[in-house]
């Protein structure tokens, strides 16, 4: 498919994601972005730990990374410039994250309808070392919310 079939420029989504304050505070960065697919990386940090006895990252950190990767995947799959809002996020924690190892989140928008984007995502520390899985749904054009590619009136 040519890029003109899509609504939002990938560079605009990259810029929007890089500027999210909550992502910056975690030190998360975009690894890759394609149409309907996004990958994020987070370096382990002591202040993001959930269980001080294991040193594993807090589940909330994993959730934040998965949610952002899922939003990126949904935005990149849109056929027109519009806003989206997360309806729900369901996350399974498969095993605790290991300390001092980076965490990755891969998300795929596997179905998009007129109203809803369906996204699945996985968090992992190595290809064969999956930490968590998530499914989320996003409402399209739910409001006039600003987001990537939004027209800003001057």
């Amino acid at each position, binding site marked *: 498919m040519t890029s003109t079939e899509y609504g939002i420029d990938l560079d605009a989504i990259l810029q929007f994601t890089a500027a*999210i304050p*909550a992502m910056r505070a975690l030190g998360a960065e975009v690894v890759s972005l394609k149409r309907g697919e996004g990958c994020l990386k987070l370096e382990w940090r002591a202040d993001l730990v959930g269980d001080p006895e294991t040193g594993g990252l807090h*589940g*909330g950190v994993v959730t*934040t990374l998965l*949610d952002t990767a899922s939003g990126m995947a949904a935005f990149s799959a849109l056929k027109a410039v519009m806003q989206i809002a997360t309806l729900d*996020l369901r996350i399974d924690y498969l095993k605790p994250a290991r300390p001092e190892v980076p965490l990755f989140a891969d998300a795929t928008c596997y179905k998009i309808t007129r109203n809803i984007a369906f996204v699945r995502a996985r968090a992992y520390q190595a290809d064969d070392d999956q930490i968590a899985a998530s499914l989320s749904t996003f409402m399209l054009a739910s409001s006039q*919310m600003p987001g990537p590619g939004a027209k800003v009136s001057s």
Partner: protein
Amino acid sequence: MNLEQTFRAAIESRDPQKLCDAIPYAKFLGLRLDLDDDGLICRLPQSDEIIGNPTLPAIHGGIIGALLEATALVHLIWEGEGAIMPKTINMSIDFLRSAGAKDTLARGTITRQGRRVANVRVEAWQDQRDKPVAAAHGHFLIG
């Protein structure tokens, strides 16, 4: 003092904030735990670092998820007998309203507690208790 001793000391001194202080990410978020007539209540103070959409502005959905999960965990530690850190099996989060750039409160309820698994519901709200910004239910390993 190990984690279990820290939890026990917090419970015995009726000082839930000590639970948060023992969990690095809860400290990172600046979570405040208090007791009121209905039990444990958790406050996520507004800060620039939790914003997901600066133009609205709105708190990041993942951070709201983190608040809900942390609230469920501290609730289980507070109410539980073992003073152990529960392990989250899963969480299902409904985002009900955009969470504005202001303090967010959350409270958990244990809907079922077995020997190994507890089911917990959590709601988060801002100005109005009857207008939650998010609700979640989760399963937690407690033994």
